[in-house]
């Protein structure tokens, strides 16, 4: 306990970095995934295929490989990246691939008859999108996006692999330092504390997601039944890393 209290400044610094990373990634991913989500429902087949290829590629490759690749292969291609930038880029590539799936799912969840009715009323395609599809898709998109944020907070631990001192790396440093100094290994204590902190943060975020889901479910006039799995899409959003 003493050890944790003594190293609080380092932990807090790491935690700040973790949040910076997660929020920056979320912002970038959100922009990219909205663009790609829209691109995945346009008429041109080539665009749709490109988005599909992007999404499938970054969802298929393990995030570990992604992070290491961006950091270590960047310099060979003439782009030297610091750990922070490299982490943001690789998380964004991954986050936007998952986000694009969320946005696409949201847009597709708008009932077909809404669109055909709008067409019958003579609305132009962009009007249909702006006035009919987008507003209705927004609500079902929100909860999975907060879920994605929770996952991103967990994913940021990976930045420790490329040497960024975020929360998890802070723990690592403390363990190494203590082992060198005193000889006995406080790993279980420090990593236990790290584990607990992540748990508290992510539990809070998960709870927020669940409440959002309920609220939105009420607004749409039907409760969200989380327990009942639909025998359906295998195209699932990554829940954790």
């Amino acid at each position, binding site marked *: 306990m003493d050890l944790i209290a003594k190293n609080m400044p380092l932990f807090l610094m790491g935690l700040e970095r973790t949040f910076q990373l997660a929020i920056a990634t979320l912002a970038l991913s959100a922009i990219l995934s909205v663009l790609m989500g829209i691109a995945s429902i346009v008429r041109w087949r080539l665009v749709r295929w490109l988005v599909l290829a992007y999404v*499938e*590629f970054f969802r*298929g*490759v*393990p*995030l*570990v*490989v992604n992070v*290491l*690749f961006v950091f*270590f*292969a960047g310099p*060979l*291609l*003439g782009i030297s990246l610091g750990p922070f930038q490299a982490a943001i880029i690789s998380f964004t590539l991954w986050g936007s691939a998952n986000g694009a799936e969320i946005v696409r799912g949201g847009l597709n969840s708008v009932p077909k008859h809404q669109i055909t009715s709008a067409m019958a009323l003579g609305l132009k395609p962009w009007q249909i999108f702006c006035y009919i599809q987008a507003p209705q898709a927004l609500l079902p998109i929100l909860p999975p996006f907060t879920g994605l944020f*929770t996952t991103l907070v*967990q*994913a*940021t*631990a*990976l930045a*420790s*692999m490329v040497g960024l001192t975020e929360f*998890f790396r802070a*723990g*690592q440093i403390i*363990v190494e330092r203590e082992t060198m100094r005193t000889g*006995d*290994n*406080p*790993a*279980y*204590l420090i*990593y*236990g504390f*790290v*584990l607990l902190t*992540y*748990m508290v943060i*992510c*539990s809070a975020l*998960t709870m927020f997601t669940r409440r959002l889901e309920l609220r939105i479910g009420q607004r749409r006039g039907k409760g969200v039944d989380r*327990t*009942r*799995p639909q*025998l359906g899409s*295998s195209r*699932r959003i*990554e*829940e*954790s*890393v």
Partner: protein
Amino acid sequence: MSYKFSFSYIEASLPALLQGLLMTLQVSVLSIAGAICVGIICASIRIFNVPVLSHVVRAYVHVIRTTPILTQLFFIFYGLPSLGLGLSLYWSAVLCLVLWGGAYNTENVRGGFIAINKGLNDAARALGLKRLQYLWAVALPLGLRISIPAMLNTSISVLKNSSYMQVIGLAELTYVAMERSAMDFRTLENFAAICVLYLMLVWGLSFVVRRVEAQLHKPFRDGR
């Protein structure tokens, strides 16, 4: 800076990479099997509300799902030995993946158990089936069928997450690629090669999932 992509290098490093792939597959298959067992057992404990164990399972699932797998791995590999539970590199990796996949599978299987008709439980009681009999004869055949696609997805994630094990130095695919890159500075070639290998595995498995799903859908196709 000019960098020549060399296909002959990939060809030369393929045997080493395949060795790594073998390790990845070995660990993954073992972990996936373990995770499915853990999932079924824990889900059964929860569905029957076994007094103390039920809460333990709940806590376990919650902890695993709300923490990064990297911290879990470090806790298991570096933290447990000082608590007197030292495991070898290989078994730490397997334990970590089994615990991770098991937590997700618990939720998957539990979802399947809940989804099957509640009336079935009452019917089984009326027929005088014991809990285990109900589990074996009713809940598992029907519930598992529903949860199989989700479990396969979790299994794919377990396979992908086996790449985390390079951090503790398990000689799986990513580790081999990292090591070879450090030796020859051929990062691009090595990572391109392992990307292709991972994608082949993941896409291949996703294809299987979709096929299985289509099969499982059949009885429900014309309105249940």
